[in-house]
């Protein structure tokens, strides 16, 4: 099993690395190529005297190379994998040399060590000590957040009094100041929403920005109110409110939740740039459980996003859901392994009934009124273009119903070209009033539609 060239290139941290990696995928550059079920390795002649040792753990996929590049995975790793995808016969099936087996072993040991550490941390005294210190920190933070939210409430009331019509004539530093205040009071989730909103109102020239801004402001107000009576909310909703405000749930707590074991299909991903923080949300669906799972990855500053699970790939293993009213975000357990590059052929699925999809969304909304987007895999829908509308694209189901595609979606023509006026499967996010496509499936292949969407 190997990933396709497109999937491998998607693992590269940036376009330049992908290009450089392609340049390395040439037999003349490599020697000592080998592999077995678990890993691949090879020696690549670089500019130095000694060739670089590149190796790939196929289950991750994880990369290692002793070149000095700070890109990860480096071009040698990408090149090695591409070469394998193109010409697997060049890799001799042998036992791994010392330097490869050492690495694989150290990877296993690391996860064992982690488990041992967790076991150690789970002694009653350790737990009690941790909880005590946590308690103290939490109380302090709660106080801070309450201060911040009080300021936010006053600020929102001012906005309501002055109205949105004059919003654009006010300086953007008001927003920055409010966001900074929220950061100071330990509510980073709200801070980034305020900052994003502040940027968005000066950006787009189109109509209707007032309504979008008003919606977001009303959501902030709603969160503020929900937090004020947090104790009276159901437990799941408490988690939603707290994580929206900016409380992070520690990974240990998540991994302590019961896991869900399944075969997980990667249906799509959404990358976003928010100030200096980049994020990538990968959406998976369990084959037998039918559950959605979202894997979030972040990068800060000039650092690149870690390689995301490739589109169309299949993973087998356990995920742990973050506690929530509507559990979506997950962590992968250590047993999560890449087992396939493309989904198995399925019998033709029933065409999507959009009204039913929206009804499911309404139920989700009832469970979590703070829901911003909701994954939907729409079977047998056809892109329809209407140049007269502000959002020119929509997706039409076989029964003639249609959902509007988000006006910010930039790849309408690409989707149209793939479909050719015929029905296909489109995966994406329902955003309340419009749909944002993230991937399409036709001719037995997945196509990524994420990217270029502001």
């Amino acid at each position, binding site marked *: 099993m190997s990933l396709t*060239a*497109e999937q491998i*290139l998607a693992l590269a941290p940036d*376009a330049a690395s*992908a*290009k450089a990696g*392609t*340049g390395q995928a*040439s037999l*003349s550059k490599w020697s000592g190529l080998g592999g077995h079920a678990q890993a691949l390795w090879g020696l690549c002649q670089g500019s130095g005297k000694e060739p670089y040792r590149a190796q790939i753990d196929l289950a991750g996929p994880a990369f290692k190379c002793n070149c000095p590049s700070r890109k990860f995975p480096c071009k040698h790793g990408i090149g090695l994998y591409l070469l394998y995808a193109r010409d697997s016969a060049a890799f001799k099936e042998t036992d791994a040399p010392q330097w490869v087996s050492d690495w694989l072993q150290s990877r296993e040991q690391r996860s064992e060590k982690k488990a041992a550490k967790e076991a150690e941390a789970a002694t009653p005294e350790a737990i009690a000590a941790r909880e005590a210190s946590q308690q103290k920190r939490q109380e302090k933070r709660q106080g801070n957040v309450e201060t911040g939210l009080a300021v936010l409430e006053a600020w*929102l009331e001012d906005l*309501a*009094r*002055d*109205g*949105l019509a*004059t919003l654009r004539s006010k300086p953007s530093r008001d927003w920055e100041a409010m966001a900074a205040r929220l950061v100071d009071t330990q509510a980073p989730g709200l801070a980034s929403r305020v900052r994003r909103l502040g940027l968005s109102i000066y950006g787009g020239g189109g109509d209707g920005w*007032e*309504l979008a801004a*008003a*919606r977001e*402001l*009303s*959501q*902030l*107000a*709603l969160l503020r*109110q929900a937090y004020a009576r947090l104790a009276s909310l159901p437990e799941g909703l408490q988690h939603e409110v707290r994580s929206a405000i900016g409380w992070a749930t520690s990974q240990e707590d998540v991994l302590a939740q019961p896991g869900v074991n399944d075969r997980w299909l990667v249906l799509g991903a959404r990358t976003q740039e928010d100030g200096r923080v980049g994020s990538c949300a990968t959406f998976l669906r369990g084959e037998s459980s039918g559950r959605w799972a979202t894997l979030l990855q972040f990068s800060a500053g000039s650092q690149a996003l870690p390689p995301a699970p490739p589109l169309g790939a299949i993973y087998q293993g356990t995920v742990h859901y973050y506690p929530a009213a509507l559990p979506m975000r997950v962590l992968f357990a250590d047993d999560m392994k890449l087992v396939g590059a493309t989904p198995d052929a399925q019998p033709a699925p029933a065409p999507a009934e*959009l*009204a039913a999809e*929206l009804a499911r*969304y*309404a139920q989700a*909304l*009832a469970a979590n009124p703070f829901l911003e987007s909701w994954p939907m895999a729409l079977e047998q829908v*056809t*892109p*329809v*273009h209407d*140049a007269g509308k502000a959002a020119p694209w*929509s997706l*039409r*189901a076989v029964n*003639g*119903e*249609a*959902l*509007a595609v988000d006006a910010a979606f930039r*790849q309408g*023509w*690409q989707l*149209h*070209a*793939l479909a*050719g*006026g*015929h029905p296909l499967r489109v995966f994406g996010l329902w955003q*309340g*009033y419009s749909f944002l496509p993230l991937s399409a499936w036709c001719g037995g292949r997945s*196509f990524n539609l994420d990217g270029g969407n502001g």
Partner: protein
Amino acid sequence: MQLPVNMHKALLAGTSRVPFEPATGVAPALQAVAGHSLWQALAAQDLWQRAGLLPAAGVEAPQPAPADGAASPRAAEDILLLLMRGLHAELLPTWLALAHAQGVCVPHACLVPLLEQGMGKPALREKLLPVLGERGRWLVAQNPDWNAKYVAGTDDAAAVELAWNTGAPAQRAAALRAMRAADPAAALASLQSGWAQEAAELRAALLPCLEAGLSLADEAFLEAALDDKRKEVRGIARELLAILPGSQLSARCAARLAALFTLQPKGEGQLPVLEVALPEACDKPMKRDGVGAENPYHMGEKQAWLFNMMQCVPPDYWAQRWAVPPAGVLQVMQANDFGRVLQEGLVHAIGLSARAGAASAADWLVAIHASKVPNARVLSASIADKAMALPPAAREHVLHAWLECGKAKGVPDALMLARQMASDGSVQVSPATSRLMLGRLQQMMRERDAPSYSMKLEFETMAALLDVGEMEYLEQGWPEPAWAHWDNWRQLVDELKEALRFKHTLHRSFTDNKE
């Protein structure tokens, strides 16, 4: 989202100006939960609407695209994706040309990025048009921006007709070219019927289209255009008449020159000697034929007249009249005091005859370097441009012959020609010429310690032009690894080999069917 009137007004104007009334500002169903705060009411309204949203109904299905012919092999598609990622991007035209030759079209997923790339690149558009396939044409027809740029070819007479009647100038010119290709006489009639009403810019834009399918049937129209008000149009008409074999313009200029030339035979085995008298005056009919119209090389006035007349006489005329081969003609003119002027004119005439498709044009171009014309290099620097007008096979014949001439004479022009051929993007020369060219490159390499900027260009040219069918010759003829300057060159050589290997893979990707 739609808001009740009061809520909307309060939101925009501010509650200090338009107080928010919970009784009228929210939907009746929400009265109980909305509260008095504008934001809370808005959040409730928003949630209520999102939860109750229904899909639009009764949407018409779009017209589906007709089924496409053969898809490109998966290996070729993978290569195309690499090209679009920027790896060896210069090979994109090669890919498109190969796809066209194999009768396959662009994969659907690549259509949109390629169509977008082609928007600013006419050369790419031309290559892309024949491989768009049904899906591509269906797509283009729905997008007005693309539809304006991707003008249909000859296969769609109705579209051509429409473009000719209503299109923008560039589209009308493309349509006229297509019409000329289909039926030259009818195209001329169409052009003639509206000629008097066309604006001067349009006349200048449309007239060059007559070069396709040019024949004596066009002569009367072109002769009339010699009297056009616009100088540019007169120049184009003159050039076309000079290209046209057997035109009266050529005959008039030849007769004028014959009156000025006296040829004195020197007996068996020796070239005759030419004596030239400069023209006395330039009268009106001469002016009409372009004499005195341009003087690109800052010659004397009367010399420029000679030059202008020489331009309009096909070179074969002299070879026949004097009964000497092309190289002889060049030498006879060379020996004259006005040799440079005559040769310049002759080179221009050779260029025009190449455009006319004369079979002898290649012989003339070869003769420029092969004959013992001592200052062939001082002749107009654009000999390589002239050779570009030849059909591909003849062009390669000229390239090969120039390469064989030796480094001082033919090779610089050969390399210039090669560079122009390379810029076309999808040309590849024969194995024999490839070997010769690589040999010349290796020879140039040995004479230098380190690559100059122009050498880097030559390496790029080689990467574009050399044959990639059989790759062994690529490993031969390089300097020994022990060569002292090898380190300066290694990178260039490795890049060249890598580029050619990639191209080799590209070519094979269309024919090797692994899947």
